[in-house]
């Protein structure tokens, strides 16, 4: 039987990172993936990632996927695609379906990096065609170029629901409403805000009563729920939609570990049934490691670091490196991982209600309850300053681990400081040169360049605009407020799409000066 030093199941972010680290240290490594393309979910992620440089922040997911594949190739990793691992047996033996047959392989070490699958919720009509998972919608759009539907209701306001809603709009769907049974938005406020300002209504404390349609979805009814998750009569709302997208969480795909006799636990904080493992992915079975979502649902950025840890731990287990080296390497990776696990959305804060930022500022309740920050709330955050001339306005109001903006500004106008979760502040005395790099670098699309008074009664607002078609110079339309309501007339005065912006075009609109701090999106007439 063919034997490898290390067999990795799953060529997603964690599996590939594990493979790269292991192969670099001399392990004969193979990665099996059931899909025809490697990269797991990365190639569906067309948005820019959060984090810092070491987490590949502001790089789009699919680009990270390409980078990882190149690195894996250089390190000598063998990636076998269309290869479904159908079983993990005793003695670290796997059976892989390849083509029209099966292969048996043994690994001296095995890393399971099989990721997660989407959860479902039930309501009358949930089995109608047209009810799909948000991840499925993303696969259709971003991998296969297929429109999931024309009018979509999204259930779930976590990052997946928010990110996919935005992508649905980018590919031309109308997102009719964003609904969540929770009383507050679950994902990053900046993701919510960029959807809300296009006019998508948020219905928190609401859920789906039923999907309508005989053969397929033709509509949906939602209603408000009380604190016991019971519908409140009389609050029903109907929408004509052809698609209902469910973004209600993920469950680890840990079946291979369970069938191999790995000690498992049911851990709601990790998303369901997960292997019992230490922080480096070592399971109860000697030589069997885990990395990524299969051991607990997190972001791709964390999965990559976990993958590295497991790859290095496997190298040590097989004697390719000394324990000293393992310890040294893990310390820096742990720092990187801890960096990501900070702030308001840290795993330890899950389910907690946070009322003030690390800076002691009251959070925007409206952002949590309706998806946008009110004009009254926005002024209290440090990213918002008023001065003459062009200057950045950073509507970044939650402590999340992300700092590309401070590196993006060539003039040092923006500072986050050493603590990656701190809110960005405008550096006193700095001079903005209107280059737009900060706007394009912000993964949350929360930075605007504003000239509050052009001297002729107008103001200029530069905003990120990742939609097609791009309006042309001179296009007239409406400036939309943070809630997506038209607030004023607006005219496009400049459209920039520099290579350095990495496909985040910047639109500059001219608005009456009293709307300088109100208009945050543009809609052509």
């Amino acid at each position, binding site marked *: 039987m063919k034997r490898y030093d290390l067999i990795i199941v799953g060529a997603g972010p964690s599996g590939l990172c594990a493979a790269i680290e292991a192969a670099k240290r001399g392990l004969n490594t193979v990665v099996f993936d059931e899909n025809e393309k490697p990269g797991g979910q990365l190639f569906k992620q067309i948005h820019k990632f959060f984090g810092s440089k070491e987490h590949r922040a502001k790089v789009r997911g699919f680009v990270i996927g390409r980078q990882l594949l190149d690195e894996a190739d250089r390190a000598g990793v063998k990636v076998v695609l269309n290869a479904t691992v159908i*079983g993990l*047996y*005793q003695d670290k*033996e796997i*059976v892989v379906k390849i083509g029209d047959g*099966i292969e*048996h392989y043994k690994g001296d070490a095995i890393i399971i990096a099989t990721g997660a699958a989407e959860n479902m919720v039930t309501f009358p009509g949930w089995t109608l065609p047209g009810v799909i998972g948000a991840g499925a919608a993303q696969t259709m759009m971003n991998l296969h170029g297929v429109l999931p539907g024309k009018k979509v209701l999204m259930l779930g306001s976590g990052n997946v629901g928010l990110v996919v809603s935005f992508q649905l709009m980018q590919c031309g769907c109308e997102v009719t409403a964003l609904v969540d049974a929770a009383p507050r938005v679950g994902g990053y406020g900046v993701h919510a805000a960029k959807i809300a300002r296009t006019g998508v209504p948020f219905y928190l404390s609401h859920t789906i009563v039923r999907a309508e349609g005989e053969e397929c979805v033709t509509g949906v009814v939602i209603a408000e729920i009380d604190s016991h998750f019971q519908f409140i009569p009389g609050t029903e709302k109907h929408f004509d939609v052809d698609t209902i997208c469910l973004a209600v969480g993920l469950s680890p795909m840990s079946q291979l570990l369970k*069938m191999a*006799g790995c000690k498992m636990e049911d851990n709601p904080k990790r998303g369901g049934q997960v292997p019992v493992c230490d922080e480096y992915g070592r399971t109860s079975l000697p030589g069997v490691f885990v990395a990524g979502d299969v051991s607990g649902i997190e972001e791709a950025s964390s999965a990559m670091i976990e993958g590295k840890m497991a790859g290095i731990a496997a190298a040590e287990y097989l004697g390719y490196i000394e324990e000293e080296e393992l310890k040294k390497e893990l310390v820096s990776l742990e720092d990187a991982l801890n960096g990501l696990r900070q702030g308001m959305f840290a795993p330890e804060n899950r389910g907690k209600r946070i009322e003030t930022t690390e800076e002691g500022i009251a959070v925007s309740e409206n952002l949590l309850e309706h998806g946008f920050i009110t004009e009254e709330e926005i002024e209290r955050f440090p990213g918002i300053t008023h001065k003459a001339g062009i200057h950045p306005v950073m509507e970044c109001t939650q402590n999340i681990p992300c700092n590309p903006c401070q590196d993006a500004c060539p003039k040092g106008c923006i500072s986050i400081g050493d603590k990656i979760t701190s809110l960005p502040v405008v550096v006193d005395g700095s001079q903005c040169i209107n280059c737009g790099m900060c706007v394009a670098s912000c993964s949350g699309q929360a930075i605007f360049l504003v000239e509050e008074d052009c001297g002729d009664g107008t103001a200029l607002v530069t905003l990120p605009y990742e939609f097609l078609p791009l309006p042309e110079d001179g296009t007239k339309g409406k400036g939309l407020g943070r809630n997506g309501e038209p607030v004023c007339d607006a005219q496009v005065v400049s459209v920039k799409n520099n290579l350095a912006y990495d496909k985040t075009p910047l639109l500059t609109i001219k608005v009456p000066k009293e709307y300088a701090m109100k208009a945050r999106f543009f809609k052509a007439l």
Partner: protein
Amino acid sequence: MGNNAEIIVIGGGIIGCAISYYLAKRGADVICLEGSDHFGNGGSSRNGGGVRQSGRDPRELPLVMYGIRNLWPFLSEELDVDCEYHQDGNLRLGKTKKHEEILTGLTERAVKAGLDVKMIDGDEVRRINPYLSEEVTCASWCPTDGHANPLTTTLGFYKAARKMGVHFLSGEKVIEMRKVKGVLRKVICASGNIYEGETIVLAAGYESRAIAGTVGIDIPMQPAMLEALVTEAEPPMFDQMLGTAEADFYGHQTKHGSFVFGGSSGLEGFTKDNGTPVCYAKTAPCICRGIMKYFPDLAEAKIVRTWAGWMDRCVDGVPVLGKVEEVPGLILACGFTGHGFGIAPGAADQLAELITTGSTQVDLSALRYDRFRAKI
């Protein structure tokens, strides 16, 4: 509810659940203890569902014939659960001269014991089941054999007995039995709980050996791991139960449409496990190759699950049933050797009769514990 009952049944498989049911039906007060977390968790849920008489040892044949005549046809109605019982015959298939000899021998013995079974040739086999390949040259054919769903039947007995007041406990692993004043009375569990009864039925599969050992009884049986698999649902093809001369392959199409097949790789008896019955990587592919030789049409059917289970293999291939003279109060019901499903209702009913009346309709004497002797 207390820890005392007239009868304590150790083991919540089909034997334990069915005995509990037939005891409750006769008005007895029963506690049934299952060591694992689930009722019907051993061979009861892992077998191929055969309800057959052909191919059986003459010592146990009367018992299974009794069940097929008197119990199986009415079981779904009686338990209020669909046991999916089909009485459409059993084909025990042969491909070689040697197979034919084995089958002829089995058939002659069964006929002597009063069973309607006969040898047929390959063409006749294919008239009964046109999907079988030309490789099949002969078979024994028993039209009164059949199959049922082991999962719903086992849990059906549990459900019906529970409804009649049997006190069931799972996760209650028995570690010891103890006599009081010369009579078996106490059942001690790993949890520390102690149960007391006038009669104690030991129906814990291969684990019965260790439990019986605590009162000085040694049943010559060993666990042996077997494997099976199931396909996705297919259009209805045939209703017979199938087996082979060497008993290396067996199965049927279920009501659901899926095919359940058991089989072997040749490594059986010498496999290892991790504390739970686990599949061997080599076995399912081997079973698939075996199935396709008999049923080329099933090549495209998708396998959705494979599993393994232990059988309690008794040294002479038939169960150990009934009273044990040395230990008054003990009733043994174990050692079914991998074919305990079809015989379960009959065995359970007769043991319940033995416990409640002291006698049985079917003579169980050939299956008693005191049958084990040295060969010379």
